């Protein structure tokens, strides 16, 4: 006998190779889609109503992957390898995965042109359920199948709001309305228009999973859950978030559905009916809601905001409007208030058009009383800034701070920013001090209020105007 050791090693190894080759072949032939195909066929044969139907069922080809290849999208969708009854009316009330596609959608969206993942997402190339649906982080697939409650977002990739409304797609239509009316664009740019505090939202729904910090998400760590839960509790998901929104249940689902319409442009234009779902707002009231209400609310009351850590002034109440003219209003809106969350809204910064800004100002100033107070008559000559400083330190620093920065649990606004220092006229500031601002913590310092004389007020203003030149810290 030749070498016992090597011959037995050879024999045992050869048995392993044979056995595992067999196992591998068996695994190839008995995988999920093979099983689904033969089960589907069996089901149809068993439930055939007529001889002809049975013949047809017997003629169904099994054992081959079925796919739609969309050459212009470089997509291959193999979903129908398991979803065999996709276009079979007999399977209208069948069980998944053999069920017919619901609704009439496939009549207008030929499977051969659209495939499946254009609307449903998931991994079209995969041939087992876990990876095809992209469920679980271990599939390393960024765009898992979209949950049914958000599916209307896919319609909005190509269709406009009017059509969606007519078709009864209320979830996404309401989501779009919420997006406009909750003031999301006060902080988020979309299509280059909007504020700067938050991230721009263009293509946000096409972002890879790793963009969404999942540490605090409850349940499956998907982008869908992230978006929804961060509408319900922004700081519960991102502790440092300054987002001012808290929606519940249905509204969160609706806005989430809208968010998932914001996909990167991927489909060629011959797939689409429209470019963008969002409705263009034109009137002042809608524009105010869209861009201002996120922070200012209705604008009637000033609000101390815990998250932003500062007082957000009332801007549509008459007490404010009687003091401020359109010029000063526009100056503040254009330049923003540096050092606060109020960002610049001039057309080059926010993408808003001059015409739209004018409409917003028109809307804000709508309730300006016809009676405006007498001018203060500020003049620059003979101002005693030393006395102003003393007065400031006695009367103003409690709210505005010694250095005039405000903020940080103080009620007053920052007086050092360039709007106060450069854009706003002393006349306007003096009037504000004299008459105060009703609806805000700023009291009147005039004879009727805190009892300062005009001379003293003018000195304080002169001092405040020097704050911007001083270095502190």
């Amino acid at each position, binding site marked *: 006998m*030749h*070498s*016992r*050791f*090597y*011959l037995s*090693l*050879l024999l*045992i*190894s*050869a048995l*392993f*190779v044979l056995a*595992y*080759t067999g*196992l*591998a072949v068996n695994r*190839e032939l008995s995988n999920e889609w093979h099983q689904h195909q033969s089960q589907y066929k069996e089901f149809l044969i068993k439930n055939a109503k007529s001889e002809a139907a049975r013949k047809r069922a017997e003629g169904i080809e099994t054992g081959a*992957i079925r796919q739609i290849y969309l050459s212009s999208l*470089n997509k*291959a969708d*193999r979903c129908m390898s398991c979803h065999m009854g996709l276009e079979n009316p007999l399977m209208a009330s069948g069980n998944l995965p053999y069920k017919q596609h619901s609704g009439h959608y496939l009549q207008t969206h030929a499977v051969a042109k659209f495939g499946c993942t254009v609307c449903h997402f998931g*991994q079209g*190339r*995969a*041939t*087992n359920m876990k*990876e095809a649906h992209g469920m679980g982080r271990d599939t*390393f*697939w*960024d765009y898992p199948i979209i949950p049914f409650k958000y599916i209307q977002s896919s319609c909005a990739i190509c269709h406009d709001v009017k059509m969606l409304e007519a078709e009864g797609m209320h979830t996404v239509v309401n989501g779009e309305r919420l997006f406009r009316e909750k003031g999301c664009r006060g902080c988020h740019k979309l299509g280059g228009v909007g504020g700067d505090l938050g991230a721009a939202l263009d293509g946000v729904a096409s972002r*890879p*999973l*790793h*963009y969404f*910090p*999942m*540490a605090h998400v409850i349940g499956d*760590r998907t982008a869908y859950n992230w978006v929804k839960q961060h509408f319900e509790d922004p700081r519960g998901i991102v502790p440092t978030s300054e987002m001012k929104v808290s929606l519940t249940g249905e509204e969160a689902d609706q806005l989430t559905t809208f968010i998932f319409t914001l996909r990167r442009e991927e489909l060629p234009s011959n797939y689409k009916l429209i470019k963008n779902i969002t409705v263009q707002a034109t009137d002042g009231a809608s524009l105010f809601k869209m861009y201002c209400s996120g922070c200012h609310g209705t604008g009637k009351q000033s609000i101390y905001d815990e998250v932003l850590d500062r007082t957000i002034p009332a801007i549509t109440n008459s007490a404010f409007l009687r003091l401020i003219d359109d010029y000063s209003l526009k100056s503040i809106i254009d330049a923003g208030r540096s050092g606060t969350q109020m960002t610049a809204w001039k057309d080059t910064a926010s993408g808003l058009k001059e015409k739209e800004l004018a409409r917003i100002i028109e809307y804000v100033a709508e309730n300006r009383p016809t009676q405006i107070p007498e001018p203060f008559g500020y003049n620059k000559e003979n101002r005693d800034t030393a006395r102003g400083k003393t007065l400031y330190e006695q009367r103003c620093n409690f709210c505005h701070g010694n250095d005039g920065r405000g903020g940080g649990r103080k009620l007053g606004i920052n007086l050092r920013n360039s709007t106060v220092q450069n854009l706003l006229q002393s006349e306007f500031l003096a009037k504000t001090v004299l008459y105060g601002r009703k609806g805000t913590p700023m009291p009147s310092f005039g004879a009727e209020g805190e009892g300062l004389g005009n001379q003293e007020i003018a000195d304080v203003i002169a001092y405040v105007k020097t704050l911007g030149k001083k270095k502190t810290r």
Partner: protein
Amino acid sequence: MMNGLNETGLAKFKGNLISLKDSFLESFLRNGKITSDKSRAAVMFNNFFLHVQGVKTHLNTLRPNYTFGLGLISLFLLLIAFASGIFLMVYYNPSTSNAFNTVKDINFVVSGGRLMRNIHKWSGEAMIIAVFLHMARVFYTGSYAKGRQFNWVIGIGLLVLTCILNLTGYMLPWDQLSYWAMVIVSNIMNSPKEITDIFGITQYFDIGGFQKELFLGGLNPGQESLTRVFLLHIIMLPSIISVVVGIHFWRIRKDGGLTRPENFEPMDTDASYALPPSKKGGIFPTYKTYGLMELARGRTPAVDNDVENTVLSWPNTLIAELAVFMMTAAVILVYAFYVDAPLKELANATLPENPAKAPWYFLGFQELVSYSAFMGGIVLPTMGVVGLLLIPYLDREEQNVGTWFSNKQGVWVTLQSTILGAVGLIGVLAFSINFGWFRNWWPEIPQLLIVLVNPGSIWVGFIIVWSLYTIKRTGSTRMGAIALFTMAMVTYVILTYTGTELRGPNWNFYWSQSQWPVH
């Protein structure tokens, strides 16, 4: 008569037809039926593939506990990788827009594609382990001596080639792993900048930038880089490694086969590895062997010693080789059946993996890179390779060649170095993990100091000092080599483990991956 002649012709033809099989086989194999020792020898030297092996093989070579078959295993893994690689090449498309899709298709729709991809991946990575262990076997049996010095050098070259082949393959699927591995490698190639910047000569002599652009074909990984890596992986490196493997084997033959102890004694157990040498003579008397290179000048194959302990290669060696091949195939097949080769998300240049890790076999070096890219990525690996290359030239002792660890002292030095290496290195790592390094203590410190003095360079310095001390202490260069090699191996293993298992996001320390912050 005419008729008879005719008949004879036809009969001849008939006869030829009947013996077609035998005559074809004879012409194909160049020898007749294998019935005698002479024909057994003829099989070996008449066959192109077999003649690189001797007609007779020493018993020691056939003992599994001498070689553990590691060199053969490496070869067979290479062949398996070649075969499965050709399969994959049919489907793979080396373009940034399609590479990922075609790899997905190999996984999902190509019959047996996933298994083949797994086999290719795991045979490649197993080859690194096999080649490493093979190197350790050759080292510890002292088999780099007695004319084999240059073959050791070739072997180190093969080790490097194996790693580069694996690395280039890792970059082909164009997923996140591929992309960020490319970034890491290009950064390491760029790292001489660290030095040229210190001397302010980068704008005149930017060797780092040149290397990086040569590799990437641009400034960032893209189609050009993929094309280059693809060509490296499927044409250049396989051709080179095939030729070099051929030379490696040919030199083994020229050097008289594998090493063996000088005081070799046959044992009873040898009977289970080979047919014991026949003492009855036959045409090959045991006292004589035949060199096939008798016309060659200079050194002929060193085959004429210890002839009495050799056996015929056919069938003894060939059965052993076939068994090792089958075992290798079985292990790879079973592993590939259960464990899938990784494939992550599509490459995304805007989304760095955190941590962005190189493939595991380079994570030891990446750990060093985390101290200093230039030192850890270029200087220390180069020193490591050069150090390995120099071993046979700096240790020329020829006693005890063919004996594991040379002698009792060698066992002792190996043990000592293993323990000292493990404890010392873990100490250095623990120190730098707990207390940081220069940059954490003195943020303004010049980079040159960190490049020169960091945990990696200090440790390598210690290894060198330790092996010199061992030479002094034992009076033997072989012992010094054992100390050096052992410590280098221990270092490689521990650093690789640290980089693979203990480093998480931002290269911070974690005991296990389950403690990584959720993202």
